[in-house]
């Protein structure tokens, strides 16, 4: 018997500690990352998330300052407080990253997402879909005798609940942009 008290012939021992040392509460945070709009920058950010096992709930990116070639990436992520801190530190140390803002902790913010819904149906269901769309302030951007395409902007939660309501009424497809977010105030 070796001093580890592992019986000769045993197989159940890993060389590594397999338990997750960070098992705590999971939080959702919205991060705004200002980056140089150089080639590969998005792959770099996404690679960081996949390579280190972080979650991406939603991700949007577009150039926001054409003169300075800067883009803004908005990413919604989940993790324990320690993981969220790591994600921010890992993002901030990347060479093309200029700023990292955690909109979830830096005070109140507005979050919006745009979604398109294709709903097909006839009769009562079709009328009900249109009525609900009005309540949710969704616009009709395309219609045939058998279908609508609704456009809606709102929080991800609002879009989720509209989608739930549309499902029994003939929801065929959804396209969502992911979240764009800004802090409130000047």
């Amino acid at each position, binding site marked *: 018997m070796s*001093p*580890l008290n592992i*019986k000769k012939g045993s197989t159940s021992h890993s060389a590594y*500690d397999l338990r997750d040392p960070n098992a705590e509460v999971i939080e959702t945070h919205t991060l705004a990352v200002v980056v140089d709009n150089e080639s590969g920058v998005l792959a770099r950010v996404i690679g960081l998330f996949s390579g280190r096992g972080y979650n991406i709930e939603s991700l949007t990116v577009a150039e926001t300052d054409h003169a300075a070639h800067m883009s803004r990436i908005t990413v919604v992520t989940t993790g324990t407080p320690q993981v969220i801190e790591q994600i921010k530190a890992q993002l901030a140390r990347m060479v093309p990253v200029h700023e990292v803002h955690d909109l979830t902790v830096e005070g109140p913010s507005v979050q919006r997402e745009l979604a398109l819904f294709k709903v097909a149906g006839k009769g009562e269901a079709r009328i009900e879909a249109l009525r609900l769309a009005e309540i949710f302030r969704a616009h009709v951007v395309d219609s045939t005798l058998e279908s609508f395409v609704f456009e809606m902007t709102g929080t991800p939660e609002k879009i989720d609940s509209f989608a739930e309501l549309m499902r029994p009424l003939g929801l065929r497809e959804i396209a969502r942009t992911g979240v764009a977010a800004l802090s409130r105030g000047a």
Partner: protein
Amino acid sequence: MTRQMTGARMVVQALKDQGVEVVFGYPGGAVLPIYDEIFQQNDIRHVLVRHEQGAIHMAEGYARSTGKVGVALVTSGPGATNAVTGLTDALLDSIPLVVLSGQVPTFMIGTDGFQEADTVGITRPCTKHNWLVKDTAKLSETIHQAFHVARSGRPGPVLIDIPKDVQFAQSIYTPMEKAKVSHYQPVVKGDIDQITRMVELMETAERPVFYTGGGVVNSGPAASQLLREFVEATGFPITSTLMGLGSYPASGKAWLGMLGMHGLYEANLAMHGCDLMINIGARFDDRITGRIKDFSPHSKKIHVDIDPSSINKVIRVDVPIVGDVGHVLEDALRLWKARGRKVNKAGLAKWWKQIEEWRAVKCLTYKNSDKVIKPQYALERLEALTKGMDRYITTEVGQHQMWAAQFLGFEAPNRWMTSGGLGTMGYGLPASIGVQIAHPESLVINVAGEASWLMNMQEMGTAMQFRAPVKQFILNNERLGMVRQWQELLHGERYSSSWSESLPDFVKLAEAFGCKGIQVSDPKDLDDAIMEMIRYDGPFIFDCRVEKHENCFPMIPSGKPHNEMLLGDADTQGVIGSKGAVLV
């Protein structure tokens, strides 16, 4: 003065402007224009390697032993993919490198052209940053930027991928001073309030310990000097990770030896029992911490690191200080002196008494033999016979690496190059050549295992061609010793594929390369043979036949806390006596 030139010439010009003296590389179709420029000048020396992995490890050895940025040049496709292991190694050990790779011409990118690989894609996760330069006008500026990124903040490897048409095209060269100032400027000064908290804790601590790492070496010789002064003035004990050896001298009074999985008993128990841990430029690697939950449970922890993402990554600390080690130590030392040089004398005296008890265990004791060479004995003799010499040590990866860290003493930083974070077998031989190229007059020894050494042995050709008299000290146990040890301790003594079968005759191999080799298996012959190796004017392969079943102790099995260390007196029969397990 504006200067028009080809992209290939720009590469050479930018390297010269950056003070580069040596490039390690291997040619191929996609870098021929650059090789043509190298041919037509004499300022930069090109060292032709035998495999691109060798080029990167040589550049690492060069960088680590000089504090400069190492430079390598490889062709597209297979040249670049062969560089990947070296890049990852440099990333994990924070070694500053600039690697230039050739690429198929821009108009062929994406067509699966001959020797095309998505080099920036493949190397994105194993570089600090990389660039694909598609426009000759941007090439020189990108190279200057690359050097800045490689050496600033936490150093690391960067790669620039240069398509062949970009090398041929003409544009205007941007000199270093004219290059755009990068927004990438990591903070070097630590926050003074946090440094004040650090000093306050140091003034009252009863059981403090300095836990230092590769960051001290990377910060430069001044940081090591400050550290020594601080340790001497406070009388605090100090330990270091594998990567930080030499920043505090092994002969220093306060030195506890290396810590971690194969660290010294007194170092690990001091970490476990301290009430103040002062982490300077180390990163709480899992080889250091063991089981996180039980890591140094009663201490306040200070962490100085230039990389904010290292702080609170695995271990929560009480005083985080983001900054360069040298800058922070300077501020802390000044402040501590200004406040009256206070330490808790009574507490420290008790603490040292405790540490002396741990030291008295003499954890590195092994059972010597007059029949067979014990690897520890071989290293003790190597140490005794080379001590005080102008000496650099590299290693491969395995038991011999850990024994080298335990039994060799390092008095200065930048004298010890080893693959820490990645644990890359095959690192040591090429690294030793890189060191020797940087220090042609010094004694450079690669402490190797026979299995690791075979992984890049083709580089003996490079050593011969460039007259690098590197000494290959191979502790030949005919085993993948470290694997064998784990199989013995963790896998029921089932030795699955951990033999080194069909080994070459190393003496004949040396002759085949045109250098000298020796085989020694009798302990009595060891000293003379070592002296012969040192005196020989040229590369040397020392086949040191050692005990085949020796285990490396102390050992903290993965996932165990520091105080559940195995001491074991390294019985060679494959079974360790139960008193080997020391539970404190």
